[in-house]
């Protein structure tokens, strides 16, 4: 019976080619527009570390107070050096790290090679186990290296390729601005997107960092932050003046495995801020926050508003295409009232008529889906025009997108067919036979 319906559907679809083409085009374009924007949206709003995001938390501490003229909820996006160091020393979470972006000039050993700029992060040893960072060779440095302010460095696979031709470079040395570092590990393929640990510097979707070195070492070398530095007032002169100023520039992450630990850390933060009030550093009651990874991405508006707007517009576009398809299917089906009347008169039940037209719609859906798939592939290529290359790069056609595109196309067309098929099933056989 199914084969017979498919045969009937194909015959009817080829009979009115114009209408069929219009329907397929309509579904194809609608699906392609929605899927293209969805691909981008999925790329930028995804969870960068699904297996661990619920255990990673970043604190905010109000170090400016109500007189800063900001809303109560608008706390600084980063910590001051003073607060970050206090939290590091308190060691209240199972793992914790302060982080800031740094840039140096790499000076190659061979005199013939030109120096080149490299970008990376200064962090603590906990960074690597905490964020499940994969290593190709070696590993991160130890907590002892942090306290010893050691000259150790972790480099990216790409930098390893450039400097050491991709060989195991653990134990070898490299020169950054005249300081020699020992390579302790080479990263595997690791560039979580969005880069949750540095979104406040606008680095949500940039290329992977090239190295990591101990925070303590970077501070010893008086390395300025390569990211944002937000000062409520000009800091006192000199490096020490800046370090102990109320300028915020340090990101801070903690690993808190369970609710009890999270509760304890919240209390600790409040306690810390109250203590600062007691010793006279803050002139206001404790005002602290603790966000988990996904809350933090949301708080920092990591998903560009353009993506959300285009998702909404694309959804509306899909809706128009759906309404269009309902109209065209209706026209197509009602044109065949006579034929339906005959079939009904010869004993076809309403259910059978229903089934026949649903199958016809599903075929249109499959055709529209295939067209939509081609257009989506084109659209994803065209996304390079719409969004900065760093975001466009993330949107790619993969198996799940292909499946989803076809599914959306078929489901949408079948949904659109409900009303026309219902109308067809209710054609009065007697009336049709009489007037024709």
């Amino acid at each position, binding site marked *: 019976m199914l084969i017979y319906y498919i045969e009937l559907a194909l015959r009817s679809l080829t009979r009115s080619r114009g*209408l069929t083409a219009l329907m397929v085009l*309509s579904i194809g374009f609608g699906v392609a527009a929605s899927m293209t924007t969805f691909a981008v949206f999925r790329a930028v709003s995804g969870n960068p570390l699904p297996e661990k995001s619920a255990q990673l938390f970043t604190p905010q501490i109000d170090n400016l107070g109500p007189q800063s003229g900001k809303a109560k909820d608008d706390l600084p996006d980063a910590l001051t050096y003073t607060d970050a160091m206090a939290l590091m020393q308190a060691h209240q979470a199972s793992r914790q790290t302060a982080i800031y972006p740094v840039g140096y*000039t790499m000076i190659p050993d061979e005199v013939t090679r030109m120096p080149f700029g490299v970008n990376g992060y200064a962090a603590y040893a906990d960074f690597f186990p905490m964020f499940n960072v994969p290593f190709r060779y070696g590993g991160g440095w130890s907590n002892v290296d942090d306290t010893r302010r050691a000259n150790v460095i972790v480099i990216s696979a790409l930098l390893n390729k450039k400097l050491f031709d991709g060989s195991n470079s653990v134990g070898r040395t490299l020169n950054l601005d005249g300081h020699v570092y020992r390579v302790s590990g080479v990263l595997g393929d690791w560039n979580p997107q969005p880069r949750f640990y540095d979104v406040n510097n606008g680095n949500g979707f940039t290329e992977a960092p090239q190295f990591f070195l101990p925070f303590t070492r970077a501070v010893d*070398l008086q390395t*300025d932050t390569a990211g944002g530095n937000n000062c409520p007032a000009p800091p006192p002169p000199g490096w020490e*003046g800046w370090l102990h100023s109320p300028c915020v520039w340090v990101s801070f992450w903690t690993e808190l495995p369970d609710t009890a630990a999270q509760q304890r850390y919240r209390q600790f933060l409040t306690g810390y801020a109250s203590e600062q009030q007691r010793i006279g550093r803050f002139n206001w009651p404790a005002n602290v926050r603790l966000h988990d990874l996904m809350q933090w991405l949301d708080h920092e508006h990591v998903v560009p508003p353009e993506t959300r*707007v285009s998702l909404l*517009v694309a959804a509306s576009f899909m809706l128009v295409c759906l309404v269009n398809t309902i109209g065209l299917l209706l026209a197509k089906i009602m044109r065949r009232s006579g034929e339906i009347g005959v079939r009904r008169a010869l004993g076809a039940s309403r259910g059978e008529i229903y089934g026949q037209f649903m199958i016809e719609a599903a075929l249109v859906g499959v055709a529209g889906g295939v067209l939509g798939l081609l257009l989506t592939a084109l659209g994803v290529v065209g996304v390079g*025009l*719409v969004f900065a290359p760093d975001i466009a790069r993330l949107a790619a056609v993969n198996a799940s997108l292909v499946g989803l595109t076809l599914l959306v196309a078929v489901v949408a067309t079948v949904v659109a067919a409900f009303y026309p098929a219902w109308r067809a099933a209710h054609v009065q056989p007697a009336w049709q036979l009489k007037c024709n």
Partner: protein
Amino acid sequence: MQIKPILASLRWHKAGTVLIALQIALTLAVVCNALFIVQQRVVRLLRPSGVEESSLLVIQNQWAGKPATPQLPALLAADLDTLRHVPGVADVYSSNSYPLSSTSGWSMGVRYTRDQKTPTTPSAIYFADQHALSTMGLKLLAGRNFRADEIADLDGRATLAPSVVMVTWALAEKLFPNDQAVGKRLCIGNAGPSTIIGVVERMQTFSGSFADAWVERSTLVPYRLLSGISIYVIRTRPGQLNEVMRAAPAALFAANRLRSIDAKTGVQTFAEIRATAYKTDSGVAILMAVICVLLLAVTAAGIIGLTSFWVSQRRRQIGVRRALGATRSDILNYFLTENLLISLGGVILGTLLAIGLNAVMISQFEMARLSFGYVVIGVLALLLLGQAAVLAPALRASRVSPVEATRSV
């Protein structure tokens, strides 16, 4: 043309009528808002930067080996001298940032007095020397340029406290509306007062949506920035942009190779800087425009499809009308008017939807309120589109011969 019989016949195919009207309504809602987004982006794109873009180059240089701060003034002076001697270079200066920059930017609150609690406005801070105006081609509206003896060196972390500054007209107008700004004083951040010595016509801030609210409020301060990264803005002689683009970094490396200039972003023309700064804006505008065109096409296709069906369904009735004396233009008018009535229903509903969709966008995405002009344009466009789409099937209907009345289908 009689409307009553049309309405009566529409009652016979309610579903089709409602679907066309609904489609027109949805299309109107999306097209109005999309066009509005396009217009807002285009306005941003067309904002003049105030500088002579066609002949400017920007070089971003990073010193290798982290030279100590006291060494930097000599290194900077040597580089500027090297660049000045590159054939095709008209002028050059070093700064901390430049208009439309997406990589670096300084902003500070500007106050009338030091103890004023909240700043009057944020302002972009551009480091400049006596060559800045001529390099960028900025027009001095009032007052004078910096003198060579006013330019000081400033360590990146030191407090900014210039005795003299130049401001843009937009900043002057914000601080001293309808008044002469030259000679007045302002405070940058919490520093002591600086005297305004000149007003330049226009100089945009760096890119980034946060700077949109104060887009032309910039301050030029008489400093050379001492930092590991220095930015050189170069004015080239007419037609020599490409030559200088190749020759300038080569000359810098020849003079001193302890530096790195990024292969991709180290040397940029202003056209590239502008394209990067407005990448998202132009992209969104293109995306929305494409969606508008596709939507209108889909809607037109839908109208053609349904009307063709109606025409073929009613061939006999048309034949009867023709036999009873209706002219071809009567039949044509019938279908045009029918479509106009349905479209009118659609655009009325669509106007409400457009305003609703805009309200959602305002609350969710901080969009501006849709101006009524867009709705009017959208309504007219859709009414015209409906008439154009219905024309072909209606013409076919008008050619139905009266003989059809006597034939059975």
